[in-house]
């Protein structure tokens, strides 16, 4: 349901464009907000109710293929909610309390969620999130 907090034990996927993941290596620019964006768009993996990570990635790739232009060089970053919240809270200068909230798109992507309480072009927090990347997968549905 919209606005629900995603549990710390759950995981999210972030779509990384080719210029945010040169040579497949995901960079901090993948976790920076654009002007006017309130949250960083992610997908809630456990919401998909797949049996394993491989199937979750497959489903995320399918969702991307329907909603985004996915280049062969685009990547998926897998993050654990508790880990990113913890590293940002303990290591950021202002002990930032980021929140990961369910934000389904009406009539569209129901696993869509958002990382809230980021600021635009916050390199420091984006680099902290990079430290918490658990997995890196191709984003293209083959």
């Amino acid at each position: 349901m919209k606005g629900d907090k995603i549990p710390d034990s759950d995981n999210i996927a972030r779509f990384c464009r080719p210029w945010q993941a040169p040579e497949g290596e995901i960079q901090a620019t993948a976790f920076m907000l654009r002007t006017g964006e309130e949250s960083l768009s992610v997908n809630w993996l456990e919401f998909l109710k797949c049996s394993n990570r491989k199937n979750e990635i497959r489903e995320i790739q399918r969702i991307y293929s329907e909603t985004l232009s996915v280049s062969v060089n685009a990547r998926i970053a897998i993050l654990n909610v508790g880990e990113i919240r913890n590293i940002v809270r303990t290591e950021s200068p202002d002990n930032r309390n980021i929140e990961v909230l369910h934000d389904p798109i009406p009539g569209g992507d129901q696993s869509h969620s958002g990382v809230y309480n980021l600021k635009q072009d916050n390199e420091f927090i984006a680099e902290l999130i990079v430290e918490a990347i658990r997995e890196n997968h191709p984003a293209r549905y083959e």
Partner: protein
Amino acid sequence: MYEATSWQPDIKNLLPFEHEPNTKPFWEIEFDNTSTIDHSKTKLSIYFRDNAFTQTELLSTQDDQVQALIHQIRKSKIISNHESIANKLLALFNFAKEENPTSPGIAVDSLSNFYDFLQLYTNIKNPTLSLSPDYNNIYASWRSKEKLFSAHFLQNGDIRFVLFKPNNRHPKRKIRITGTATSDTLTEITTPENLNDWVFDERR
């Protein structure tokens, strides 16, 4: 004949800094060779030839300016890893253009800021380059084991940097610094000895 209104990644026809008599550049950037940068004087003359027998042409679009600067980096004798950096920049430019042909690809003022940085720090190691989501600014990172130095090259000449490194006195903690500087003051803030080995090549 070059189509100034369309985007073309091919840069083989660009001849930066080649001055021919009786021609006037459309726009100018002049690069300062001193150890400090005065951005108010930043000018570059770029000329363009479409074949061996015709006169130079003017570059007017931002895409042309970006490609000319990349070419300038590629041709530089003093910038370390100049070929590799130019290739990375061109790849980023092409990625951004493929997804959105009307986007700037790379912000020319950010690239110019990065070029100033490369000219000042000629012993720089090969960075990982990416683009910021909003304005397509250059974002350069150097990683080595537990260390990270990243620099976001803003269009106003500033650099926003992040430095993460182990805290040798407290092995379970990390030193984490962020701030804003210009290229010529960066090493006054983040002392060079903190960046040697993984950002600067001490042998050069």
